[in-house]
């Protein structure tokens, strides 16, 4: 579960990126986080992943208090979250299999667990048979599927996707979003940051609309209706 209560973030240069935001995302929910540039979406994602610390209020992520979390606990917290980036962030010198294996090794998985889990996850994202391909040999959509697989491979309770379709054409975007919806249906909480109205309107999920660091709307429905 993710819970923000009067969360604030003021950067060292004085910029107030988040101004007293409160919301709760329950386990198993699918939520779109939308809003114009500079509305605080990226800052919220960074607070959720422990890249930055909130300067006010409370942020709880899967039982970890992000304003009081000890440095040695951050890796443990991150293992409860799978992060997907707009630019995929795959390691170009490693194969698809090794990219996923690295994520598993990083959390202490045994070679046996790695051999058992990776084929299952690749099958889930529709990349069976691409184990030995390098990222450069894949299309943009396939690379993002690898990123989804990497986010999923450690079986996190939450997936955070930061503009996951920003570098993809509309067809591939829909495919990735459908994949995330399927993952959500398996019980994983999914939070998607996006500015693509079409996709938000297509899936009709809960939408949290942000503007100037504040929540301006929080409801299930179309982008325009929530952000009105």
């Amino acid at each position, binding site marked *: 579960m993710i819970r923000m209560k009067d969360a604030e973030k003021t950067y060292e240069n004085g910029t107030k990126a988040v101004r007293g935001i409160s919301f709760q995302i329950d386990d198993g929910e699918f939520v779109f986080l939308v809003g114009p540039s500079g509305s605080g979406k990226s800052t919220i994602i960074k607070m959720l992943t422990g890249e930055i610390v909130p300067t006010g209020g409370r942020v709880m992520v899967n039982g970890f208090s992000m304003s009081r979390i000890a440095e*040695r606990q951050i*890796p443990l*917290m991150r*293992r409860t979250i799978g992060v997907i980036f707009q630019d995929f962030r795959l*390691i170009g010198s490693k194969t698809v299999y090794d990219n996923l294996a690295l994520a598993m*090794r*990083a959390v202490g998985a045994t070679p046996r667990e790695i051999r058992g889990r990776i084929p299952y996850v690749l099958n889930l994202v529709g990349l069976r048979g691409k184990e030995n391909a390098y990222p450069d040999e894949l299309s943009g959509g396939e690379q993002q599927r690898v990123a989804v697989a990497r986010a999923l491979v*450690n079986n996190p309770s939450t997936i955070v996707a930061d503009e996951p379709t920003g570098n993809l054409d509309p067809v591939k975007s829909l495919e990735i979003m459908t994949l995330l919806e399927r993952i959500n249906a398996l019980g994983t909480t999914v939070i998607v940051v996006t500015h693509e109205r079409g996709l938000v309107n297509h899936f009709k999920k809960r939408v949290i609309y942000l503007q100037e660091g504040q929540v301006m709307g929080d409801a299930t429905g179309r982008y325009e209706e929530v952000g009105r």
Partner: protein
Amino acid sequence: MKHNFGYFIREGARNMFSHGFMSFAAIGVTVACLLIMGTFALIAFNVNENLAELQRENAVVAFVDDTLSDSHAQELGAELEKVENVASATFVSREEARDNYVNNYDEDDLYSDLSAEVFRHRYVIHLEDPDLMAETKTAVENVEGIAKARGDEAVSNGFITLRNVASLISVALVAVLLVVSLFIISNTIKLTTFDRREEIAIMKMVGATNGFIRWPFVFEGLLLGLLGAVAAFILQWVLYLAMCRGVSTSDTLQLLRIVPFLRIWDIVAVVFGAAGILIGVGGSTMAIRRFLKV
């Protein structure tokens, strides 16, 4: 950790080869640093050995009691050699002592008719540890039949001070060189790490601990340090032999005693190996520190 050990070593080796040029640069820097440190330390070691040799030449002279017969005086040698720290005790009869004395003034006929009776039988005593001259001199004086012992403690103390100063300067300079080496190697490895900051950021994002990320870099540093140490050791050997040859053929330096490399090769190898590992592991650990703050 246990099942990741093989992975850490493989990754460390793979990283070293995949960043070939930077690895070459890092090894080159290690070799240069170790060679400078090694050459300096070996010169300091030889200076110290030569000073110790000169100090050993500064012997204790033990004068035999006049009341002892000639034969009894000559038997004292065995007793003296039993004294702790005495390496050798050479008997010098009063006649030989007279001759030595007179020979010092061979331009002057003032002492030509000097009687040997003026001199005492004596022993020239060389010490195992010249630093313990005062204690040994007292022990020699306590041997029955020895009237008095003389040793130039001022000269001995002068040598001790000189050796201590030389050792202190050597240690200080080697320490400074070691720190400089660590700094240079750290910056060289930092350049290779810079290429991989994205990879590190990804590992941090999936929940890798700092230890998991650091280990492959530590092994890479270890390998670079060891390879640098092996290359530096071989070059040091060649350089040392050239130095020995240079000293032995020089008109002015051939008086110096150079310790053969084969007598010290094992110590040099261990020190180079340890320093290489320290420089490599220390440098890579320092280099990666800032990239772990994600």
